[in-house]
């Protein structure tokens, strides 16, 4: 059989076909990363409109229905379009290199899991132009409100189906790659932390994305085919949706944070020039968090009503998560302790992550307490909480990962000065943006409203100013990426002095196929 049946190891197809038909993990990783950056700015511009409307009390710029649509689609785009695909992009680029494989285990499936995304987002964004506007019931899609969505309702459901299918395929590929493609000698407990966290994340994805698909399918049949899953008149219950949704939704939040833990566990040792303080405790902590994530979902629903025993159970179960999370935080701190620290951009983002993710973690602990949650539920306090975990949490980890591995991807260092500016502006303005929202929430400002009493005016204005400046700061990231792509300063194979791992044994930029023959791992 001729060579044309598979890629020769050093050649790559050219032009558009390379990107449309590719089976290469680096090409697909790049597609994921670029897509997620675009979606980050799409979702970000929605956030800018939200903060613009909230700059002052009163209705100034957009009507309330459109405001609700912006809130809903901003969340869907950021969760499914920015954060999740960015981590899958990192997994694609890095996992084969880190475990000594040539590529992902199922390369064509890999292509498909990416090429579902543009179609899913076309379906979702299209809804802005349909009668009745884009979905406006919040990203949690609670019935009966979501059932009042206009023509965009089936588009929303099918977009979620496509996104779920894409995630499941991507996750299957990642698990199979890790379990089957490791180089000889790369035992499980020798795998880099980033690979470990992704292995566990992929398991979460396969377990919960089908449940979300089931939940939205029930919404679809309730709306169009007369079923009564969420209709009390027929013996169903709207609260059932909340249970099914959060059975997906709670593991989902760990899907967005566990790979961040992996990234931080790569960066901190590299710039502390010390190995990770406790590798196996980190693995067990990750697995514990993943396990606990399946059995605490109803802490999202304390105010919807449940028996007191249920409330106690979900409160205590949720608090348990603080233990493995604390193990992680102290692990990173102990890694830095007495290390030879330097503060290049990836390290700054990692330290920023540790500090500010902890703030998000603590506010989560506050809301785990049932009587306290009654006060905080659906206020700006919860908005502040999950934005602390997701923005200076997941997004900072993603930024740190990009700075850390850009020299490996492009072969050139990014402009360090721009990176430093990007970090410091982001770190300052993200706090100006989200910290006042804690006060707004504690004072009783509800989330998801376009207008508010004048008593909330000052903090909202501060938050909006922080928001605009944080948004503008992210343009520096684009500049930094371009500075690496069009780079001046060549990066050696081992781009960072203290970096460890198989990916740093490959030249920079990494060859098209990572390892043609398995490397030996001692």
């Amino acid at each position: 059989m001729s060579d044309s049946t598979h890629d020769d190891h050093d050649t790559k197809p050219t032009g558009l076909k390379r990107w449309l038909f590719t089976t290469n993990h680096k090409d697909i990783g790049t597609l994921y990363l670029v897509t997620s950056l675009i979606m980050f700015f799409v979702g970000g511009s929605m956030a800018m409109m939200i903060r613009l409307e909230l700059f002052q009390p009163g209705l100034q710029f957009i009507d309330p229905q459109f405001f609700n649509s912006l809130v809903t689609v901003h969340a869907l785009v950021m969760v499914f379009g920015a954060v999740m695909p960015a981590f899958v992009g990192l997994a694609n680029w890095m996992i084969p290199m880190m475990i000594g494989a040539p590529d992902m285990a199922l390369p064509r499936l890999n292509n498909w899991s990416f090429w579902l995304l543009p179609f899913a987002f076309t379906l979702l964004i299209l809804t802005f132009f349909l009668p009745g506007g884009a979905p406006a019931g919040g990203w949690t899609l609670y019935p009966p409100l979501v059932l009042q969505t206009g023509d965009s309702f089936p588009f929303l459901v099918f977009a979620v189906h496509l996104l779920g299918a894409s995630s499941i395929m991507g996750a299957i590929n990642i698990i199979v790659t890790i379990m089957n493609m490791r180089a000889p000698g790369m035992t499980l407990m020798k795998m880099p932390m980033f690979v470990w966290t992704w292995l566990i994340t992929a398991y979460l994805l396969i377990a919960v994305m089908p449940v979300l698909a089931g939940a939205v399918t029930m919404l679809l049949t309730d709306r169009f085919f007369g079923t009564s899953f969420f209709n009390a008149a027929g013996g169903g219950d709207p609260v059932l949706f909340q249970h099914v949704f959060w059975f997906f939704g709670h593991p989902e939040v760990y899907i967005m944070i566990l790979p961040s833990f992996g990234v931080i566990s790569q960066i901190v040792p590299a710039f502390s020039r010390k190995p990770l303080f406790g590798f196996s405790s980190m693995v067990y902590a990750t697995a514990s968090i993943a396990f606990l994530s399946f059995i605490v979902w109803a802490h999202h629903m304390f105010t919807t009503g449940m028996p007191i025993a249920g409330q106690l159970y979900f409160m205590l179960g949720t608090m348990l998560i603080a233990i493995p999370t604390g193990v992680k935080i102290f692990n990173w701190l102990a890694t830095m302790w007495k290390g030879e620290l330097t503060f290049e951009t990836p390290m700054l983002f990692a330290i920023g992550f540790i500090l500010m993710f902890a703030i998000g973690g603590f506010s989560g602990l506050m809301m785990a307490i049932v009587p306290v949650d009654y006060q905080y539920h659906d206020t700006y306090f919860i908005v502040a909480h999950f934005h602390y975990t997701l923005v200076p949490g997941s997004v900072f980890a993603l930024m740190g990962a990009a700075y850390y591995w850009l020299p490996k991807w492009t072969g050139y260092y990014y402009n360090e000065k721009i990176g430093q500016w990007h970090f410091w502006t982001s770190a300052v303005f993200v706090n100006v943006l989200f910290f006042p929202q804690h006060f707004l929430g504690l004072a009783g400002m509800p989330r998801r409203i376009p207008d508010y009493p004048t008593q909330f005016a000052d903090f909202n204005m501060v938050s909006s100013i922080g928001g605009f400046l944080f948004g503008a700061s992210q343009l520096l990231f684009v500049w930094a990426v371009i500075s690496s792509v069009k780079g001046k300063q060549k990066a050696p194979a081992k781009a960072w002095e203290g970096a460890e791992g198989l990916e740093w044994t490959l030249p920079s930029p990494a060859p098209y196929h990572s390892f043609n023959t398995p490397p030996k791992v001692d």
Partner: protein
Amino acid sequence: MAHADNSYYIPHGSHWPLTGSIGLFGIMIGASIWLNGSGIGPLVLSIGFAVLLFMIFGWFRLVINESEGGQYNSEVDTSFRMGMGWFIFSEVMFFAAFFGALFYARGIAVPWLGGDSNNFFTNELLWNNFTATWPTNGPDDLGGKFETLGPWGIPALNTAILLTSGITLTIAHHALQKGSRGILSMFLAATFILGFIFMGFQAYEYIHAYQELNLTMESGIYGSTFFLLTGFHGLHVTIGATMLVVIWLRCLRGHFKPDHHFAFEAVAWYWHFVDVVWLFLFIFVYWL
């Protein structure tokens, strides 16, 4: 070119994934505008479905040719096996969502509507005179009075049929491993014929339910859980039986070796999965 076992195999690029995405996109746009009342919805849906079928044919033909051409080494085989296993796990979780809805409705939602736990006033003020029972179509009697399908008629027969099909499939698998091709194709044919008989009975039951028992999807929470659980199961049986037909045709063409037949095993796993789901359906939907 056959690959030595110590080097890696990377398949070449392919347009099939993108074609599949376009097909799914067509299906979803078509279904959406149809549900919104557009007349061209069914047409768009059909075009999308045709593209998807084209993709399925094309992609599988490509993979089958590569496999029969000896391109897949044992590492690729292991990747396929693991991938199929995790795919079936994702299917299990999909059904878990609907079983969860069933258990929640029976164990919590319906009793609460009837005043259980601390819901005395819910029952007293909102749904007065509603007594929690199962089956139920809810306090508003949605869809009107209905009867259910008992377990010991056709459902029990269907259970026997699916369990038998699991046995015939296993006999076929052993025959494949021993190289007895005649027994292989005979028992494989028996398996999918049993699958189609099962589907015939299910179709008959659905018609019976709709026309004579007034049991429909609109029959409250019972009808909702009954038709979505058995409906998605029936869809999976149809897909599984179709896959059985495909590997049967491949067997007739001399595909598969005693030690190299991933596709056969993947379909067999899928069939057993569908079988196990049915057992849960029989117990929790029809029987208890």
